[in-house]
């Protein structure tokens, strides 16, 4: 078989039943993998700056919490009604813990938390509140905005879709 013939066969394969079955299986696997397990998404917004930049591209890995619970400092995706639009946030407290912001510093159960990922200045003040059972508390890394303009708070664990791959 000549090189020319091989190239031609690669780009224009014969539509044999075997080939069609192989293509269908690949298409189905890709649909299931990228539709349900490793969902591609584009980041829109600056709430996770500087960790994740606006217009960045990533994948939501859904099996991450199959056998474990979200931990503090994990970055997670939070769903709305489905997985077409999700929020990218960081877990700062778990159920039963008390969250508070004092002069931009995060306090959990009265202890000041070290947050190396927060690089922009923040002046938030939020009175203490308890994270309810089966909930986690999530906040974005970019807190350099009025507290009213930042979408954060506690959400049920079943809204956590997964984690970004990188």
């Amino acid at each position, binding site marked *: 078989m000549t090189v020319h013939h091989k190239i031609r066969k690669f780009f224009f394969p014969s539509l044999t039943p075997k080939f069609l079955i192989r293509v269908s299986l690949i298409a189905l696997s890709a649909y299931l993998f990228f539709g349900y397990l490793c969902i591609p998404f584009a980041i829109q917004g600056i709430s996770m700056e500087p960790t994740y930049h606006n217009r960045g591209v990533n994948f939501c890995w859904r099996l991450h919490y199959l056998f474990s619970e979200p931990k503090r400092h994990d970055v997670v995706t939070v769903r*709305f*009604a*489905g997985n*077409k*639009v999700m*929020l990218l946030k960081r877990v700062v407290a778990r159920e039963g813990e008390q969250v508070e912001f004092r002069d931009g510093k995060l306090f959990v159960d009265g202890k000041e938390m070290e947050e190396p990922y927060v690089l922009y200045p923040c002046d938030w003040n939020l009175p203490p509140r308890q994270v309810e059972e089966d909930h986690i508390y999530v906040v974005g890394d970019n807190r350099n905005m009025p507290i009213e303009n930042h*979408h954060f*708070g*506690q*959400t049920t664990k079943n809204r956590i879709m997964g984690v970004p791959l990188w």
Partner: protein
Amino acid sequence: MVKIKYLLIGVLMVVIGIVVAITLFPSEEKKVKKQFHLLSEWVSKSTEENAFTMLQRMKDIGSLFNAQCELKVPDQSLSGTYTREEISTYAGSARSHVSQLDLKFYDFDIGFPEKGVAKVTLTARLTGRSTTGEQTDDTRELECVLKKIENKWLFSQIEVVEVLIK
């Protein structure tokens, strides 16, 4: 060979029949979805929109709502029951403050708890630019109830679901 030809023609006719039936007689789910598509189209605004179109859109938006529509919005003074005229006026006023607006709906979950009632959970994303040049980007999960009145699905209740509670 002749048999295969007739078989193929038969299959093709069945497929065309199904497509025509789906197009001419849409399911109730499709009719409900259509109301959301109309709402999205009429709420959205381009920079070239003139005053006549704006007035027409205001009227159109009102026609999608029941005579009385309940709005449940957490943490805001907007909650209450509104007439379709009030909704038209409010929508017109809100649209006049923006130069460009885009409303999109995702992840529809449509159920029919009883005859003539549709309950829809979905994600709504509103993006745009105010007349002063400020960028708007807000995503919410909504639970809507539509009632079938005179063969038309009309919005009777819209509730904003709190995904993150500060």
